[in-house]
C-alpha cells in the first residue's frame, strides 16, 4: 500500500512537468540485478544524488481492445531510493519482495531536482494508448470498453486484470468479449511470470451469500449462484474448483447478472467421485483480491457418488479391443532325410477378440480355432497299412487375464484359458495357463502350458520385446507331444511384427521344431492384429 502511494506520488510528479521547470526526470534502465540491490545507468552526470527517488516500471506491449493495434504501455513495479549514486551508475537497495520483481531492462525513472532554473525542453507527452487512432463513432458497448481501457493506463497488473474481469463478468455476450478474454489471458500469464501467485490467502472484504449443494451427481453440471451483499464492493469474482483432494484448482470467471448475482457452472466433466471442492475469490475496486466464499485451504465440498464400479470397467470403447488372426504351420519332418514317409506336421488357425478391462481383470478374450495334425512320432515310418494318425480339433475358447497386485517391479499377469471343442471322438475340453512378467504390450517374459484332450500338451517360455516401437519381436522355446500325445518335441519360434499403423500389425512367424536330431523341420506362420 505504501508502495502504491509512493508510486502514485511519483507518477503525479512526473505527469506535471510544468510544476518545476528546473527539475527533470532522468530515464534509464536497470542494468544489473544483484542479491539485494539493483544498478541503473543513471548517475551523477545526470544529476542523480544519494537519496533520490527511483521509480521502476515494466514496459509491456498490449493490444488495443477495440482496434487490436499493438500499444506500448508500462506497468508500475515499485519505488525505491537511490542508496549510492556514482558518476554513471546508481545503486538502490530493495526489499526482498520488490527485488524479486525487478529485472534487467526495466525502466528506471529518477526525479532530479536542480538548483538552477534551467527550463527544460517541453517533455513530449505520449498520446494515451487509446488515442492511437481516431474512432469516430462508437456504440455504447465499445464506449464502455474504451472507458475501462482509458482508466487502466499505468495501472498494475492486478488492477488491469480485476477491471477487465469485472467488465467481462457483466458483459459476457459483448462482441468484444472474445478479445478481452484473450487480453486477460495474456495479462494473467504476465502476472504469473512476474510473480507466480495462487489464490490470495487473505479474505476479500466483499460478502457473498450462497447455499452450497452438499452432493452432486457424477457427470452432471453443477450450477452455483452467489449473491453479493453490496455490489459496489465487488469488481469481479472467480470460482475455483478442483476434484476433492486435488492439488490445483481450475478457475472460472463468475458471470455477473443483475449486479448482485454471480453465476457459474462447474462443468460435468469435473463433477466426479468422490467429490468436488470450490471457493470464490473476489476482486474489489482497489485491485485487491481474496477469498470471498470458503477458501483454497478450506473449500466448500460437494460429495459425488462413484459410478457403478462394474459398468465403469465396461464403459470404455476406445483402445480396448484387439482382434487377432493367426495361422501357422509346423513341420517336424521336412528336414528329416531318412527314407520312408515320416509325416509329422501340425497346422492351426485362430481368430480371437480381446477386450481389455484394465484393473485386476486385465482382459477377457474369446476365440475360435481349428487344429489339424498328422503324425507325432519321431521314428515311425508310415505306410498304407499303417498310415500316419490324424488329429483334428475345432474349438472355441474363453480366456481371462488377471493383473496381479504388485507394488514394485514390472506388472505380473496370470491368464487362464478354457477350451471347448470337438475332436476325433467328439467333445474335447482343454485348459491353458500363462504367467507373464512385464507389460503385454511391451517387453515381457511369460511361461505357459496348455493341455487338450486327444491332442496332448504344449508348454513354452516366451520373450517379447520391442527393439523398435514399430517392431515387436517374440522368441519362444516350447515342448510338446502334439498332435496326438506322441513323442516329445521341441519348437523354437520367432515372431516378428510390424506396427504398420497404430491399428494394424502384421506378424510373420518362423519356427524350427524336431523330436530328435534327425527328425526335424521348419515351419512358418502369418498373423495380423487389429487394435481399436
Amino acid at each position, binding site marked *: 500500500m505504501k508502495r502504491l502511494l509512493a508510486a*502514485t*506520488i511519483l507518477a*503525479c*510528479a512526473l*505527469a506535471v512537468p510544468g*510544476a*518545476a521547470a528546473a527539475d527533470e526526470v532522468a530515464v534509464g534502465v536497470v542494468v544489473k540485478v544483484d542479491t539485494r540491490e539493483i544498478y541503473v545507468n543513471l548517475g551523477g552526470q545526470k544529476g542523480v544524488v544519494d537519496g533520490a527517488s527511483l521509480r521502476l516500471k515494466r514496459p509491456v506491449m498490449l493490444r488495443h481492445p477495440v482496434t487490436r493495434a499493438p500499444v506500448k504501455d508500462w506497468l508500475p513495479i515499485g519505488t525505491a531510493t537511490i542508496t549510492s549514486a556514482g558518476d554513471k551508475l546508481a545503486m538502490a537497495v530493495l526489499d526482498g519482495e520488490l527485488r524479486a520483481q525487478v529485472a534487467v531492462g526495466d525502466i528506471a525513472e529518477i526525479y532530479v531536482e536542480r538548483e538552477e532554473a534551467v527550463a527544460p525542453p517541453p517533455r513530449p507527452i505520449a498520446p494515451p494508448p487509446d488515442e492511437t487512432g481516431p474512432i469516430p463513432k462508437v456504440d455504447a458497448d465499445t464506449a464502455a470498453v474504451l472507458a475501462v481501457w482509458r*482508466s*487502466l493506463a499505468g*495501472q498494475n497488473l492486478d*488492477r488491469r486484470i480485476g*477491471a477487465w474481469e469485472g467488465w467481462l463478468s457483466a458483459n459476457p455476450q459483448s462482441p468484444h468479449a472474445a478479445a478481452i478474454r484473450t487480453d486477460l489471458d495474456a495479462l494473467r500469464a504476465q502476472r504469473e511470470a512476474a510473480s507466480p501467485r495462487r489464490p490470495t490467502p487473505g479474505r476479500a472484504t466483499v460478502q457473498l*451469500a450462497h*447455499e*452450497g*449443494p*452438499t*452432493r*452432486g*451427481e457424477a457427470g*452432471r453440471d453443477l*450450477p452455483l*449462484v452467489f*449473491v453479493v451483499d453490496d*455490489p*459496489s464492493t*465487488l*469488481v469481479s469474482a472467480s470460482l475455483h474448483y478442483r476434484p476433492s483432494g486435488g492439488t490445483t484448482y481450475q478457475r472460472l470467471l463468475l458471470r*455477473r*447478472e443483475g*449486479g*448482485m*448475482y454471480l453465476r457459474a457452472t462447474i462443468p460435468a466433466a469435473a463433477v466426479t467421485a468422490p467429490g468436488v471442492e470450490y471457493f470464490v475469490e473476489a476482486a474489489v*475496486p482497489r485491485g485487491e483480491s481474496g477469498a470471498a466464499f470458503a477458501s483454497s485451504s478450506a473449500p466448500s465440498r460437494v460429495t459425488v457418488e462413484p459410478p*457403478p464400479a*462394474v*459398468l465403469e470397467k*465396461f*464403459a*470404455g*470403447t*476406445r483402445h*480396448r*479391443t484387439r482382434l487377432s488372426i493367426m495361422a501357422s504351420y509346423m513341420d517336424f519332418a521336412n528336414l528329416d532325410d531318412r527314407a520312408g514317409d515320416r509325416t509329422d506336421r501340425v497346422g492351426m488357425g485362430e481368430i480371437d*477378440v480381446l*477386450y481389455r478391462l484394465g484393473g485386476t481383470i486385465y482382459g477377457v478374450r*474369446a476365440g*475360435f480355432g481349428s487344429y489339424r495334425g498328422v503324425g507325432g512320432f519321431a521314428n515311425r515310418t508310415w505306410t498304407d497299412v499303417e498310415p500316419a494318425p490324424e488329429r*483334428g480339433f*475345432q*474349438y*472355441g475358447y474363453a480366456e481371462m487375464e488377471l493383473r496381479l497386485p504388485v507394488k514394485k517391479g514390472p506388472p505380473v499377469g496370470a491368464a487362464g484359458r*478354457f477350451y*471347448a*471343442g*470337438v475332436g*476325433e471322438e*467328439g*467333445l474335447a475340453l482343454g485348459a491353458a495357463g500363462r504367467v507373464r512378467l512385464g507389460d503385454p504390450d511391451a517387453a515381457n517374459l511369460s511361461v505357459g502350458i496348455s493341455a487338450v484332450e486327444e491332442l496332448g500338451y504344449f508348454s513354452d517360455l516366451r520373450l517379447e520385446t520391442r527393439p523398435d516401437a514399430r517392431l515387436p519381436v517374440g522368441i519362444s522355446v516350447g515342448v510338446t507331444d502334439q498332435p496326438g500325445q506322441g513323442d516329445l518335441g521341441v519348437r523354437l519360434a520367432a515372431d516378428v511384427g510390424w506396427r504398420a499403423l497404430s491399428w494394424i500389425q502384421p506378424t510373420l512367424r518362423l519356427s524350427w521344431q524336431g523330436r530328435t536330431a534327425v527328425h526335424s523341420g521348419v515351419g512358418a506362420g502369418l498373423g495380423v492384429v487389429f487394435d*481399436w
Partner: protein
Amino acid sequence: MRTTLLTSFVIAAVAAVAAPAAAEGVRHLPPAEATANEALRLTALVSRASERTLLLRYRPVGATTWSQVEFARGDAEWIATVPAEEVVPPGVEYFIASAQDGQDSPEFASAEAPHQIGIYADAKELRRRRDLARAGDRRSRARVAGEYVSYGTREAGEHTIVDHYYRVDADFSYRLLAYPLEEIRFGYTRLEGYVPQSFRAPPPSCNAGETTPGCRLYAGFKVGGWFELGFGLAEGVRLDLRGIVVANQESAAPGARAELRTGELDGNHIALGFEVISDVGGSGFFRLGWDTVPELPMAATVEVTDFPATSRATGVRLMYDLYHPFPNGLRAGVRLGYAARDQRVGGPTAGLSASFDF
C-alpha cells in the same frame, strides 16, 4: 516545489474501476438442493414491491414449457412455491421476472439461462435413471430371433443324413427396475429339427434312406413358453433365470435357463450360462460382447450343446453376432457360426434377429 508535487498528487486521483451498479429490487438466494416430491419454496426480498408483480417461471428439467406462479407476501419475504409434483429428478429449473406496466424484466436468471436446482434421488433412483438412460428411456423390448443350425451331413451308404434344427424365439421384456428385480421377460420358443437316431454316426437303417424307420429322429418342440426374471445383483451384474415349459413329442416337459452377465447386454459384456430342456438337450455357453466399433456391437459365443436331442453327441458351436442399433429403438442382428459334433463333420449356423425398444 515539493508542496506543489504533493498537491498534484492529491489532485491526481487513483483511477478506480467503476463497479457495476448495485441491482435493486429483488434479492433471491437460490436453495442448493430440493427434495423430490416435496414442494419447493423460493423466497425473495423485494423493494418497491407495490410497483411490480414478481413472477416465478419454472419447469422440470427436460420439460419444454414454463409454468408460472406469482410471488406472494410472507412475513418478511416474498414467497413462491413450486408444486411437489413438479419437483422431480433430475431437477427443476427456474427464473424470476418482474412484470411492471405490462413489461417483463428479468430479476434472476432468464428463460435462456435458467437456474437449475438438482434433485438427487436415492441410490436406487439414480441407478434406475442410469439404467433407463442406457436403454434410451425405453422400458419395453419386443424381440424376435431365428437361426438355422447344421451339424453337417453324414454319409450312410449312398445317402446323406442331415443333422440340423432351427430355432425361433419371440419374446417381450419389460424393465421393471424394481431392484434387485430389473426385468421380466416372457416368450415363445419353437425348436425343431431332424437328427440321426443314434449317438453320432448314422444308424445302419439309414443306409436304406433317411426316411427309413429308425434312421432319423424328429427332435425338438413346436411350442415352448417361458418366463424369465432378470436380477440385478449389482449395477452391471445381472442374473437371468428362466423357467421353460415345452410341449415335446411325448408330453409337456420342463426346462430352465440361466445367464450370469457383467457389463451391458447390448454393449461390452461377458456372459456365462446354460439352458436345459427335458428330452431336447442342454447347452452351456460363454459370450464376449464388445461395442467398440461405432454402431456395430458384436459378440463371440462358444457353446457346448447337444441340441436338439439329448440322444445326440455333445458338440460345439462357435458363433459370431453382429448388430446394428437404429435411433428409433430398432436393433437388427445377424449371426454366423459353425457347429460340429466331432472334428470330421460340421455345418454352418446362420441367423437373424430384430428387436424394438419402446
